């Protein structure tokens, strides 16, 4: 695939950072445009008219939206010699990877959002959200098992789908009143390993404290405190 590659992203977005990791993983040169989600750019609104969300990947002027769709697009389109595959070759292994990436979106993200987005004082809601988030993390940890990565010996599609949520763990922990290290030590170790052993991950993720500050700012803006 040829042409200029532009990524519309917000630095804390776990969805956008999936794409960052994938592009770096593939060694694809790209330009990133930071979006202020409170004041979306005309480019974002015109290239993602359906959802008006980040990330959007624009290749040679053509936009692709939805992070997992983008990951598959990157894997389909940037498979030049030397660029490792994100998804495995075997159809069953691919189905397995797609299943778990979808799980991150539907189970972990949904519960995690409820942890930090509940209004002040909504103790019951936060407690329920904490339970669901921990349950999702434990399920993911069980799927990891004794493997160094979800992809096996090396970073793969599910790792890329999940690891951008790691900088959000601190936020879940502070609002939810638990620690990932205590509840899911293997998963916490996996997150550290991803960063330590993969430059593409280390270079793509924000500081956990910055995510927390960002969320605090959002809560104030939405009157949740």
């Amino acid at each position: 695939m040829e042409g200029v590659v532009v990524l519309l992203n917000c630095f804390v977005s776990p969805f956008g950072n999936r794409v960052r990791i994938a592009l770096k993983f593939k060694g694809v040169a790209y330009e990133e445009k930071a979006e202020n989600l409170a004041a979306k750019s005309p480019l974002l609104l015109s290239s993602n008219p359906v959802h008006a969300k980040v990330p959007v990947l624009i290749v040679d002027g053509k936009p692709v939206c939805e992070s997992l769709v983008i990951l598959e697009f990157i894997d389909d389109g940037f498979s030049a010699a030397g660029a490792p595959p994100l998804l495995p070759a075997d159809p069953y292994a691919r189905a397995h990877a797609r299943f778990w990436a979808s799980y991150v979106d539907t189970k972990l993200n949904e519960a995690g959002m409820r942890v930090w987005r509940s209004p002040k004082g909504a103790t019951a809601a936060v407690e329920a959200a904490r339970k669901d988030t921990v349950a999702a993390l434990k399920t993911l940890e069980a799927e990891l098992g004794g493997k160094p990565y979800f992809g096996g010996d090396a970073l793969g599609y599910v790792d890329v789908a999940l690891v951008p949520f790691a900088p959000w763990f601190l936020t879940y922990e502070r609002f939810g009143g638990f620690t990932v290290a205590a509840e899911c030590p293997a998963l916490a170790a996996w997150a550290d390993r991803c960063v330590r052993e993969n430059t593409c991950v280390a270079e793509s993720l924000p500081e956990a404290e910055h995510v927390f500050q960002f969320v605090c700012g959002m809560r104030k803006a939405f009157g949740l405190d």
Partner: protein
Amino acid sequence: MSSSPPVKLIGHFASPFVHRAAAALRLKGVPYEFIQEDLENKSELMLANNPIHKKVPVLLHGDRAVCESLVIVEYVDEAFDGPPLLPADPYDRAMARFWAHFMDTKCRTPLVLSFLTEGEQQEGFLKETKENLALLEAQLDGKRFFGGDSVGYLDIALSGMSRWMAVFEEMTGVSLLADDDFAALRRWAKEYTSNEAVMQCLPGIEQIKGHFSATAKKDKVKAVATAMQQQQ
């Protein structure tokens, strides 16, 4: 020549999600055994093979279990020979996946709630649904199918809009596809439901009506509607 391990599809005849998986198998020409699941009394087989979500469809291919309808469709496309369901071009594949995702995450809930609610609430869901349908209408862009000349991944993903929508419109008196704005979608629905392979796994109108009438006890419907709204 070695024969492929047997294929079984655990599902329910009335489920549009199960239909996606069945349609993929039929279009690829893959023989399979259909195992009807009693959703009020879930089987050990289903629960053992889909412990995470405990839902149908579940595809069993030898000792492999594949869950989640769209994951199954892509698996069938990749694991078996036959006409490809997804287009070859990476950008076209991304568009097909995008619109399938749109149906499942943005379109489905207000669409279903258009049938399950009343009054002002219903008006809101109808308005939203018509906006969503207009986007899908535009995607057809003069083509016979979303996939072009033949049924493809996106047609399968959107197949709930073919027979099921017509049945719910008839059952509730709500008019959606009947609107003037959706001539292309109406034509598509006819084409899709007339496809030879699709017809072999498409439940009949009366069958679907019978199933949803039986389960449509007022309190149960209300519970489903409330749950869906809470998820938004």
